[in-house]
């Protein structure tokens, strides 16, 4: 704890008085805090919103949900009947979202036994019992087999089948069950949707009543509502400001737990492998990058040799070509050198960064020649001068490049995709995150949560390395 506290409050010593520049600095910091910290933490809050909220790009600050009631629709020969069901348990309202194991926990037939009439009909449909009961009935009563396939047949094929004949053999309840199962008009599927329970004054009488509305987060001025206790009444338009709903914060922690426990639907990646691969790639690649970039920068900054401008220009030139097109060439090169299919194909090609060489060279230019001369006069070889003198002096720039390299490698999607597209054992974490995206469906809630998880290592690295940027020669100066 004390180390954490000292990290947070470390300064290089204060002399007590706050000048104008200090005030300006603190004001700037506050601005940055608002503009940067608040949006970034909002991403974190978004990662625990439910899948539905993320799909519809819900703008709420926190993952909130409201107290809900059920609105049932029953279709019949007399038309549609719409009514409100309050006091339904949560698991009924959330039924489509429950996983199979969770659904098995509830005794659905016992629950349905307690209901009657339209409540029974609508909940029977909602809880998936229509197909179960209908198929049971078809079995028991030895009704024709083609009934099971009826709803997916081509319209032309249906004409040759005698549905009415079958129906006429059944009594009212049974024929209703069968027609609901088949979706034959007028018995389209009965539905139960969960709407928000609000209280508001009735526009005509002023009496405070309970209403059921589709959503309270829309920007419409007038919202359609149905009275909870007066099912036969018409739809009423209520002014949006007059609605009062009870909200609660319901974070969807399963966004995190499902993928990590391997329970995310349709996604079978082993996150530990992904993270291990990413760690290996990042650590080895960063060390390699720091080594060879600093060697090159050392040569370009501290020596005069033929072709030094040429090499420097070449290195800069490679920065200029946008990477999107050269990817094809990189793919061919990786394939030709036999590096594809293993993580070394990710580590090695990206190790020579032009920006890194550039950055280190500029920094090394500011290191006085005298320090190197002194070492050379002590009969140190160039290699020794390099790693005993230059590297420690260049520590701030090395730390900066190290941080950047870690982040580049950790977040890099393109190079791993080229190098190990189909070798799943070598997948880095960004490739694993791609698994959440199918052609038409994208499980954004899992992706976002796992992205947040993948941010943890880079944060730790930054926090650890950033202090090295401000140690170093600042205190040595010219001796």
């Amino acid at each position, binding site marked *: 704890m004390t180390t954490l506290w000292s990290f947070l409050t470390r300064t290089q010593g204060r002399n007590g008085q706050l000048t104008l520049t200090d005030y300006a600095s603190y004001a700037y910091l506050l601005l940055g805090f608002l503009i940067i910290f608040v949006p970034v933490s909002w991403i974190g809050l978004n990662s625990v919103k439910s899948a539905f909220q993320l799909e519809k790009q819900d703008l709420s600050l926190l993952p909130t949900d409201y107290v809900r009631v059920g609105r049932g629709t029953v279709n019949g020969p007399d038309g549609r009947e719409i009514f409100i069901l309050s006091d339904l348990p949560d698991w009924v309202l959330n039924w489509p979202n429950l996983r199979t194991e969770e659904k098995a926990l509830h005794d659905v037939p016992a629950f349905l036994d307690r209901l009657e009439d339209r409540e029974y009909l609508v909940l029977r449909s909602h809880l998936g019992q229509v197909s179960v009961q209908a198929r049971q009935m078809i079995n028991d009563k030895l009704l024709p087999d083609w009934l099971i396939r009826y709803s997916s047949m081509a319209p032309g094929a249906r004409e040759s089948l005698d549905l009415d004949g079958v129906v006429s053999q059944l009594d009212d309840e049974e024929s209703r069950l069968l027609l609901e199962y088949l979706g034959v008009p007028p018995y389209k599927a009965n539905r139960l949707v969960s709407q928000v329970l609000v209280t508001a004054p009735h526009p005509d009488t002023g009496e405070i009543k309970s209403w059921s509305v589709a959503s309270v987060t829309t920007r419409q001025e007038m919202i359609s509502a149905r009275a909870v206790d007066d099912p036969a009444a018409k739809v009423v338009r209520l002014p949006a400001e007059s609605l009062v709903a009870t909200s609660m914060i319901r974070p969807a922690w399963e966004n995190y737990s499902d993928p990590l426990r391997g329970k995310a639907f349709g996604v079978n990646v082993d996150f530990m492998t992904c993270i291990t691969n990413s760690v290996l790639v990042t650590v080895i690649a960063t060390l390699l990058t720091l080594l060879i970039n600093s060697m090159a920068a050392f040569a370009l900054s501290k020596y005069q040799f033929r072709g030094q401008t040429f090499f420097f220009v070449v290195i800069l030139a490679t920065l*200029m*070509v946008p990477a999107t097109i050269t990817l094809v060439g990189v793919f061919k090169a990786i394939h030709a050198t036999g590096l594809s299919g293993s993580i070394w194909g990710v580590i090695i090609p990206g190790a020579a960064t032009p920006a890194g060489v550039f*950055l280190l060279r500029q920094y090394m230019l*500011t290191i006085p020649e005298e320090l190197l001369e002194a070492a050379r006069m002590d009969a140190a070889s160039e290699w020794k001068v390099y790693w005993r003198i230059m590297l420690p002096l260049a520590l701030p720039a090395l730390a900066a490049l190290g941080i950047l390299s870690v982040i580049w490698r950790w977040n890099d999607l393109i190079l791993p995709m080229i190098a190990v597209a189909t070798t799943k054992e070598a997948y880095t974490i*960004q490739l694993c995150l791609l698994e959440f995206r199918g052609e038409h469906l994208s499980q954004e809630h899992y992706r976002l949560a796992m992205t947040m998880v993948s941010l943890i290592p880079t*944060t730790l690295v930054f926090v650890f390395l950033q202090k090295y940027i401000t140690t170093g020669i600042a205190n040595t100066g010219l001796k």
Partner: protein
Amino acid sequence: MLDAVVNAFAGTRWPLGIVLYVIVGLVVLRPTGSIGSRFMTALGWPLELAQRLSGATGLPYLFLLPNMLIFGLFTFAPMFINIGFSMTDGQSINFDQRVYSGSDNYQRLLSETQIDTGGINQEDDKFKAAVADTFIFVVFQVPIMVLVALITALVLNRDIIGRGFWRSIFFYPVMLSPVVVGFLWTLILKRQGVLSLTLMDWGWIEEPIQWLTDPAWTMFWSVFVYTWAHLGFYMLILLAGLQAIPKDLYEAASMDGTSDWRILRKITLPLLTPTLMVVTVLSLVKAFQAFEELYAMNVRWISLVAYIFETSGLRGQPTAHGLGIAASASMLVAGILMLLSLLQMYVSRSKDKP
């Protein structure tokens, strides 16, 4: 987890190669001292040997060698392949299935009439629009970015409470992937996003505004979000550069009672120039190549790299000449950038040597 480690190292010959390399170094040089220094000395055995055998003249080339080797294979050669694409026709990425066509692709990119069909050429309009829009973006983006990064680095270099924490905050957006940045700012800036709704609640605007695609606002927000997302990168470089300025200079100046502003102008900025040049050149190059965040946010204008990306058909949907045209566009972009960077470096060359 252990399997992954084993897999990585057992798969290819590379780890073995590295171990052998270090062993050779230990044998040849027989270094003394701590393990760390022995390892480091062993790493450089080719250079040590070369120096002992033929002196220090060839050494710079050896220092450059590993970097240039990887460069050559994986960065430079692809660039030549790119040039090859721009001068050949066909949809395949294999050169044996492409036909040499000289400057045809450049003509398809730049001329008014389409050379294959004889009709109007749409590519040149799109390309020129992309160049113009990207240019405007760069003109605003680079000065703003350098200025903000400089101010931030200066502030974060001072004695303030919780300096590590503030640095983490300003740096954090760099760690977010462009997809996440796009997701976040789309929620804020879409037509009925957080910004529009908040401004409507405060009564500042009547109708929601489509910040990202409204012609009046799209450039502003593009620059803003891009700066937001990449500030930390340049701030970090400048922070490092600020460390090269000896503290005694500051102490001497403050003992003389110099104001902060004069210290900034006379000491900090001049000595920061090499790093400032890195930041400016990098910022210029990267701004010209801005793509991912803007693409994720669906802004109204099409940046150069977005144009190249869409035209190339590398998403498994090749058009008749798309790859060649995109390659030509990328070569032109590289040419423009090279000129601009060289110009910039020439102008500040006198300040290069300390």
